[in-house]
C-alpha cells in the first residue's frame, strides 16, 4: 500500500504570508509532485525565549486553506450587463458574470482607460494609494503614471493621529515614521509595571510580540489593563480584573486629564512627590506658564487648563469619570501607581488615535509620560507601537525587501512620478465621487469628476468608513476594474475582474519580520487556473496603452529577487553601520544567469534560499537594544528633538497650524479635550440631563484573529474557528432580550448590518465589539449588509489631520425578526464559474 501523500518524499519550501496583519510569522509548505500536502513553521533554530523560533499564527497555518480554496478567481470576467460607458450600472454588485479571455479583458481595461482619459482627462481616473492589504504589487500604477497619471487618496489609517501629531510635538520618527515608538522587546523585562492601554497583541499582533510580553510576566512585571475589553492578552498575562479599568471607547483623553489633575492636586515635593517637575522643565515646553515656547500666550498652558484656572472647569477625576466611565477613585489610583512606580512601560495600540477629533491624543499621553518621568531609561516608555514593529522597536538589525515583501518599493527601480498631483482625503472619497467636490485645504473646496476606479490593490470599499456611500459611488462612475484572488467586495461591485496569483505562485519575495529576521520565500506551486501576477498584467496593459513595459518593470522576476537578496544588509558589530547579509559567489551568479557582483556576507545564498529565514542572534544586554528618547534624555543639548523648541512640545503651535491648514477642524496648541464627533457624548440626546439618543451604544472596532483586515475573511477553517459576531455585555443584552447566538441588526447613523451576538462579561456595558474586515454582503432589498462589515456602520467623518476615526461610532442593537443568519462557515463561498 502506498504511503499517505503527506509522508511521501517531497520538499519543504518557505512561503510568503503577506496580509498586513501587523505581525509576521514564518511559513513553509511540503510539496510532493507539485502538490502541497501540509505546511509548517520555523524550526531552523533551537527555540528559546531570547531567540525564539518565528512561529506563525492561526492565519499563517490556515493560509493553505485560503490559497487552495474553491473560491479563487479562475478566469477574467466581465459583468453580464456591462457595456462601454457602464451599461446598467445599478446592477453592480448583483449582476451575473461572463467568462472572457485575458486578451478581451486587457483590451476592455485599456480601451476604457483611453475612453475615460480622452473624454474627461487623467483626473477622472482614481486608483487607491497605500499598497497594503491585498498583496498585489504596484506595477499597474506605474503603467498608469506613464499614461498621464491618476488621482489618488490620502489619510492616516493604521496609526491614526500619531502620523501628524507624533512628529509635530517633537517625537523622533521611528521606523513607522509616525513618532510611535516603544523600547526594545528585551527591555520589557525591566519594567515593574506594564500598562496595556488599548493593546491586545494576542489578537492584533499574533505570534512573537505577545510571547515577548510573556517573558516580562515571568520576570515579575505587574500588568494593568485600560481597555473597554478584558482581552485574551490580559487573561494570559494573569491580570486580575481588579487591575482592569474598563474605559469607554474614545474617552482615553479625558481619563488622562483626570489622572493629570490627580497628580497636580496631590503632589507635594516632600510628603508625596507625584509630578516629575525636573523632567517637565528640562525636556518639555508648555506644561506651565513659566516654561512656554517663545511667543506663546502664557495662559495657554496645560497645567492651568487641567486645573481649570481660566475656564472654571477643573479636569478632575470626577470630571473624567463622567466621560470615560471609570470611577474617580480608580482614576486616582492609576495616576498614583504610575507616578510612584520607578519603571513603567505604557504600551498602547493606535486604537485611541483612530477616533474622530483625536488629534491631541498622542500629545496628552506623551505629556503624561513626561509628567511622571517615564522616558529615556530602562524599563520606561510611554507610547504607541510603531505600526508594524510591535514591541520589537529600534533600528532594523537586518534590512531588505520590505516588511510585507513589496518589491515595487525597492529603491533600485527608477521612480515613476504621477503627473496628476491630486489626492482626496479618504473620508471624502465617496462623497467626492457622488458630489464632485473635495477639500484641498483650509477654505479650499475644489471640483473633481471621478469616472473610473481601478483597484489593483487595497480593499477600499470594505476597508474605509462610509461604505453605504461607497456602494453608491461604485454604481455612479462609468467604469470599475479590480484584480484580486477572490470575489472581494470591491471585485463584486466591479465591471471587470482579473484573477491574480497568490504569492505562493510567484517567483518569490524578500521581507523583514520585526527587526531581527529576514525572510526569503519562494514559489511553491504553478499559478492556479488562469491567474496571472500583477507584473504581467501591468506590462500587458502598458503595451496596450502605448507606454514602455520595460519602464513599468525593468527586470525579470529572477533578477528582481536576486537584487533584493544582494542588497540585504545586516547591522555590523559596532551597532550602527550595515554590511551585506548574503554571501554571493561568481559561480552563484553564473548558475542563476543574472547580473551581479560577488560579495561576502554572513549566510550563503543557497542556504538562505533553502532555509528561507535569517535570524539575527540576540541576547539580553547586547548593544542592539533600544530605549525611546534615550539620547535626548541623556543630553538634550547635544540631541535636541526636531520640534522648534528642540523639546517635547506640550504647547505645540506647529500642530495647531498644521491641523488648521488641513481644513477640517481647529485645535488648541495644548492638548485640550475635544469631545469626538460620534463619541460617547453623542450617544446622548441631552448630555446634561443624561437622556440617551437614538444610538445609545458605542462601536469598538477590533482587530480579530480571524483576519488581517479583510484578508482571510473567506477562509473556511478560520470562519469555523472565529465566527463573526458582535460582543455585548450581559447588561445590554438583557435590556434588549438578547440571547447568545441571536441574529441582531445593528444600526448607526450611516448604515445597518446583520450579525450574531455573543454575550461576554469581558466587554464593558455600553459597547458593541466587532471585528473589522468582515466582507460586505449587501442586500439591496433590505438595504443592509449581511456580512457584518463595520465600515457600513462607521461614518466617513473628516476631522483633524484627516485620519480615519473608526472607534467613534454610535450604534443601536435590536433582535432581528427575519430569518436568522447561518454561521459563517455554512454560508456559500463566492464561487463563480463564469
Amino acid at each position, binding site marked *: 500500500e502506498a504511503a499517505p501523500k503527506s509522508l511521501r518524499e517531497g520538499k519543504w519550501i518557505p512561503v510568503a504570508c503577506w496580509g498586513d496583519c501587523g505581525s509576521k510569522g514564518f511559513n513553509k509548505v511540503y510539496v510532493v509532485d507539485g502538490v502541497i500536502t501540509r505546511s509548517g513553521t520555523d524550526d531552523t533554530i533551537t527555540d528559546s525565549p531570547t531567540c525564539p523560533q518565528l512561529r506563525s499564527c492561526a492565519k499563517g497555518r490556515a493560509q493553505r486553506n485560503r490559497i487552495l480554496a474553491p473560491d479563487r478567481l479562475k478566469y477574467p470576467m466581465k459583468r453580464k450587463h456591462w457595456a462601454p460607458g457602464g451599461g446598467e450600472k445599478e446592477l453592480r454588485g448583483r449582476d451575473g458574470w461572463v467568462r472572457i479571455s485575458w486578451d478581451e479583458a486587457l483590451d476592455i481595461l485599456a480601451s476604457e482607460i483611453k475612453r475615460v482619459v480622452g473624454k474627461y482627462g487623467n483626473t477622472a481616473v482614481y486608483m487607491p494609494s497605500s499598497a497594503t492589504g491585498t498583496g498585489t504589487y504596484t506595477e499597474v500604477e506605474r503603467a498608469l503614471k506613464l499614461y498621464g497619471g491618476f488621482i489618488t487618496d490620502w489619510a492616516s489609517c493604521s496609526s491614526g493621529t500619531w502620523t501628524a501629531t507624533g512628529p509635530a510635538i517633537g517625537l523622533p520618527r521611528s521606523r513607522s515614521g509616525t513618532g510611535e515608538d516603544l523600547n526594545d522587546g528585551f527591555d520589557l523585562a525591566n519594567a515593574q509595571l506594564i500598562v496595556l492601554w488599548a493593546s491586545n497583541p494576542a489578537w492584533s499582533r499574533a505570534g512573537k510580540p505577545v510571547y515577548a510580553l510573556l517573558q516580562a510576566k515571568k520576570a515579575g512585571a505587574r500588568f494593568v489593563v485600560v481597555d473597554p475589553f478584558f482581552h485574551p492578552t490580559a*487573561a494570559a498575562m494573569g*491580570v486580575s480584573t481588579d487591575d482592569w479599568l474598563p474605559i469607554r471607547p474614545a474617552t482615553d483623553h479625558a481619563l488622562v486629564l483626570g489622572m493629570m489633575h490627580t497628580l497636580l492636586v496631590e503632589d507635594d515635593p516632600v510628603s508625596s512627590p507625584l509630578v516629575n517637575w525636573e523632567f517637565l522643565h528640562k525636556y518639555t515646553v508648555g506644561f506651565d506658564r513659566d516654561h512656554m515656547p517663545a511667543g506663546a500666550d502664557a495662559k495657554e498652558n496645560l497645567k492651568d487648563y487641567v486645573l481649570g484656572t481660566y475656564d472654571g472647569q477643573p479636569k478632575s477625576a470626577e470630571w473624567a469619570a463622567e466621560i470615560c466611565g471609570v470611577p474617580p477613585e480608580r482614576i486616582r489610583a492609576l495616576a498614583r501607581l504610575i507616578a510612584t512606580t520607578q519603571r513603567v512601560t505604557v504600551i498602547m495600540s493606535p486604537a485611541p488615535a483612530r477616533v474622530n477629533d483625536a488629534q491631541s491624543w498622542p500629545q496628552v499621553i506623551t505629556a503624561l509620560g513626561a509628567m511622571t518621568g517615564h522616558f529615556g531609561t530602562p524599563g520606561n516608555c510611554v507610547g504607541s507601537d510603531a505600526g508594524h514593529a510591535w514591541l520589537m522597536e529600534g533600528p532594523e538589525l537586518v534590512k531588505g525587501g520590505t516588511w510585507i515583501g513589496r518589491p515595487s518599493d525597492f529603491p533600485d527601480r527608477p521612480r515613476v512620478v504621477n503627473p496628476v498631483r491630486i489626492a482626496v482625503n479618504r473620508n471624502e472619497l465617496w462623497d467626492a465621487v457622488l458630489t464632485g467636490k473635495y477639500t484641498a485645504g483650509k477654505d479650499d473646496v475644489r471640483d473633481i469628476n471621478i469616472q473610473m476606479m481601478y483597484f489593483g490593490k487595497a480593499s477600499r470599499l470594505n476597508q474605509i468608513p462610509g461604505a453605504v456611500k461607497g456602494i453608491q459611488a461604485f454604481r455612479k462612475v462609468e467604469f470599475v476594474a479590480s484584480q484580486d484572488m477572490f470575489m472581494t467586495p470591491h471585485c463584486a461591485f466591479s465591471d471587470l475582474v482579473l484573477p491574480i496569483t497568490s504569492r505562493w505562485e510567484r517567483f518569490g519575495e524578500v521581507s523583514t519580520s520585526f527587526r531581527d529576521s529576514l525572510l526569503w520565500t519562494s514559489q511553491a506551486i504553478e499559478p492556479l487556473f488562469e491567474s496571472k501576477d500583477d507584473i504581467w498584467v501591468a506590462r500587458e496593459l502598458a503595451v496596450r496603452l502605448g507606454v514602455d513595459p520595460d519602464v513599468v518593470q525593468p527586470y525579470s522576476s529572477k533578477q528582481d529577487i536576486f537584487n533584493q537578496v544582494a542588497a540585504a544588509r545586516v547591522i555590523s558589530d559596532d551597532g550602527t553601520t550595515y554590511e551585506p547579509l548574503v554571501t554571493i559567489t561568481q559561480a552563484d551568479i553564473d548558475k542563476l544567469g543574472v547580473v551581479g557582483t560577488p560579495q561576502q556576507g554572513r549566510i550563503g545564498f543557497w542556504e538562505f534560499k533553502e532555509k528561507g529565514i535569517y535570524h539575527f542572534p540576540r541576547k539580553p544586554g547586547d548593544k542592539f537594544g533600544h530605549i525611546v528618547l534615550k539620547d535626548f534624555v541623556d543630553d538634550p543639548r547635544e540631541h535636541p528633538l526636531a520640534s522648534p523648541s528642540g523639546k517635547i512640545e506640550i504647547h505645540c503651535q506647529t500642530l495647531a497650524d498644521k491641523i488648521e491648514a488641513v481644513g477640517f477642524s481647529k485645535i488648541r496648541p495644548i492638548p485640550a479635550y475635544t469631545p469626538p464627533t460620534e463619541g460617547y457624548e453623542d450617544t446622548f440626546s441631552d448630555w446634561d440631563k443624561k437622556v440617551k439618543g437614538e444610538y445609545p451604544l458605542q462601536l469598538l472596532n477590533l482587530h480579530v484573529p480571524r483576519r488581517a483586515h479583510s484578508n482571510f475573511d473567506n477562509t473556511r477553517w478560520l470562519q469555523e474557528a472565529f465566527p463573526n459576531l458582535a460582543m455585548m455585555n450581559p447588561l445590554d443584552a438583557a435590556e434588549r432580550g438578547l440571547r447568545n447566538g441571536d441574529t441582531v441588526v445593528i444600526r448607526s447613523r450611516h448604515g445597518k448590518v446583520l450579525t450574531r451576538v455573543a454575550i461576554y462579561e469581558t466587554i464593558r456595558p455600553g459597547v458593541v465589539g466587532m471585528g473589522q474586515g468582515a466582507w460586505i454582503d449587501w442586500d439591496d432589498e433590505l438595504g443592509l449588509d449581511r456580512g457584518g462589515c463595520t465600515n457600513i456602520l462607521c461614518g466617513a467623518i473628516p476631522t483633524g489631520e484627516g485620519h480615519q476615526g473608526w472607534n467613534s461610532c454610535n450604534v443601536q442593537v435590536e433582535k432581528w425578526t427575519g430569518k436568522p443568519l447561518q454561521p459563517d462557515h455554512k454560508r456559500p463561498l463566492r464561487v463563480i464559474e463564469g
Partner: protein
Amino acid sequence: MKQKAWYFDASSCIGCKTCEMACKDTNDLQVGVRLRRVREYGGGHWIVRNGFEQPAGVFTYFVSTSCMHCQEPPCVNVCPAGAMQKREEDGIVVVDSEKCIGCGYCQWACPYDAPRLDPTTHIMRKCDMCIDLQDRGEKPACVANCPMRCLDFGELEELRAKYGDVDTIMPLPSGDVTKPSFVVTPPKYPSQSAGGRIRDLMEA
C-alpha cells in the same frame, strides 16, 4: 507502563487557535472536524455601584484539548467494532479506519467530545498525537506551532514531574472519570470554583 500524554498551560494561553489550525492542516481536516479545539471559559457579572458599571468576579481563560489518550478510555470500551484501540507501547488511542463503522458511540461516550465523524468518509477521526510525525522525530503539529509554548507532550510521569499532577480544569470533566493523560497549569485567576460557562458562540 508507558503512557504518552499532553501538557497544557492554561495560565498563558491566548486562545489564538494556532494549534487548531496546525491540526487541521496536518491532518487535512475539513470544516466540522476539529480534532484539537480551543474553548474560552469565563464568567462573573456586572454591578452598578455609585453610578458606575463595575465588573464583579469577571474572569476568562482558554482551554485547548484534543483526545486525552485516557488510561480508562470509554471510547475503547463502547466501540462495537473493535476499531478504537489503545496502543500497548505508548498508550495512544487510535481508531482503525478499516474496522470503524461510523456509529459514533465513541463520540457519545467521550466526555471530552474528542472523536469526530468525517462527513465524507463516514468514519471517525481522532487525534493520534501525530504518531507518524513522532516516528520521524517531529513533534505533534499543535506542540510545534504553539506561539506561546503552552503545549507540550511526552511520558505522563515525566510531564507530572515537570509540571505537577493537575488533570482537571473547568469546563473539562473531573480527571477521575477517565484518567486522562493530561497535565494542566491552571490560570492564576480565578479559582476554579467560580461559576462560568463556555463562551464560544460555536460551542454554546
